[in-house]
């Protein structure tokens, strides 16, 4: 379980996170939504330790997050895939595996993970510059799950993809999360993604969690109505 307690972060006097409290139970798929510039990616980076919060704590399994231990147990899909330009596809996927196993075994695991995201062995030797946007996302996804992580983070997984490819990536993510039982945190502003990937949705607005509830009922949540561009349903209670 990951718990965020009073997470605060500002940049140059601009308060981006203003006391974020959020609990992510084990095995749950949480989508964090919000408009551009509301601090979704900053929140993710604070959880990962890539940004240091000004105040607040991140707990993992009830204890302050031990970054080295935590890093070893999670996978991350970056918005632009963030594949290493100088490494081939299989070397990208097997990056962490190669730190503790020989290349032959690491390559075999990488090919298996590539197959899981729908890429054949012919892609293994390609360089990132030779991949389309959708393929790069798939390779990034294969890298994220290469070490069978307990927690997977997805930062805007469908940004820059056409709707068909976006839904294919969503389906892949949902399949992987269900199959592995991993805890998933997805940062997105794509509500269709949210419906497919998430069990639960949290809306980040004004530096705080403005709504937190199941995906199944998010259509009824007044706090989300504004975000979805629909009028708030009359008398509907906020699930958060």
């Amino acid at each position, binding site marked *: 379980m990951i718990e965020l307690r009073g997470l605060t972060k500002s940049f140059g006097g601009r308060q981006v996170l203003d006391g974020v409290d959020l609990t992510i139970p084990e095995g749950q798929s949480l989508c964090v939504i919000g408009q551009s510039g509301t601090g979704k990616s900053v929140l993710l980076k604070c959880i990962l330790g890539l940004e240091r919060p000004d105040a607040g704590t991140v707990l993992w399994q009830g204890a302050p997050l031990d970054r080295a231990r935590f890093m070893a147990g999670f996978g991350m899909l970056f918005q632009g895939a963030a594949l290493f330009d100088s490494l081939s596809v299989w070397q990208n996927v097997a990056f962490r595996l190669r*730190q503790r196993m020989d290349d032959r075994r690491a390559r075999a695991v990488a090919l298996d993970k590539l197959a899981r995201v729908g890429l054949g062995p012919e892609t293994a030797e390609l360089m990132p510059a030779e991949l389309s946007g959708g393929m790069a996302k798939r390779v990034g996804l294969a890298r994220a799950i290469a070490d069978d992580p307990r927690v997977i983070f997805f930062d805007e997984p469908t940004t820059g993809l056409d709707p068909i490819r976006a839904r294919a990536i969503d389906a892949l993510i949902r399949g992987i999360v269900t199959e592995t039982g991993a805890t998933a945190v997805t940062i997105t502003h794509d509500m269709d993604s949210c419906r497919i990937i998430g069990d639960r949705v949290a809306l980040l607005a004004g530096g705080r969690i403005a709504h937190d509830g199941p995906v199944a009922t998010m259509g009824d949540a007044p706090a989300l109505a504004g975000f979805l561009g629909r009028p708030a349903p009359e008398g509907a209670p906020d699930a958060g």
Partner: protein
Amino acid sequence: MRAIRAIGRPALRLTRTLGAVTLFALRGLGGIGRPAAIGRQIVQIGWLSLPVVGLTALFTGAALALQIHSGGERFQASDVVPAIVAIGMVRELGPVLGGLMVAARVASAIAAEIATMRVTEQIDALVTLSTDPVRWLVTPRLWAAILCLPVLVAVGDIIGIMGGWLVGTGSLGFTSATYIANSWAYLEPWDVTSGLLKGAVFGLIVALSGCWFGMRAGRGAAGVGRATTNAVVAAAVGILAANFVLTGLFFE
């Protein structure tokens, strides 16, 4: 009071930056790194810089011979051309010009590559894959540059002296044997060694500038461009300043 503040603020900022750069360098030099990565960087930094360093040294040695000959004629000292070319190349021009050429080629390339990795989140990806970006990216580049620059300087010295020899024997009336004998006659081992040591320091400055500005690049293409420019300027100024300090240390 305002004047003190005006001096104190930039001085504090400079001290902080120098401290941060020193800590960054120590972190980068703290491990030997991956031999394969160092090998790749040696090819990039050393081997691929050979043509530009060689050509620079050749023309510099040749021009130096012409200058010394025409200047020396004023006081009947044109015989000293080989010795001054040799001493000038190995002590000063070989390391400095070699360092500056490598700074232009390598500091920019390192800064652009690392800055691009930063803006495309590849550095963050390294962290999330339990890999220290400094050890992974900076260490091999620092060690490769420190190892390569003395070799490039040595090659540049030889080619520079050859440039002087070509001009000396081709148009200044020296015989080949006289030119070579005069080149050796006044050259001392410390002249060569000091130049090679300068090369190692310049190598550190070049790679450190590229890595430092690359790792701190701002967002987007503009951030990459600024990092590249800053890296080259800092490396060039750093080399010239370090050359002054080292020359004072070595020869005063």
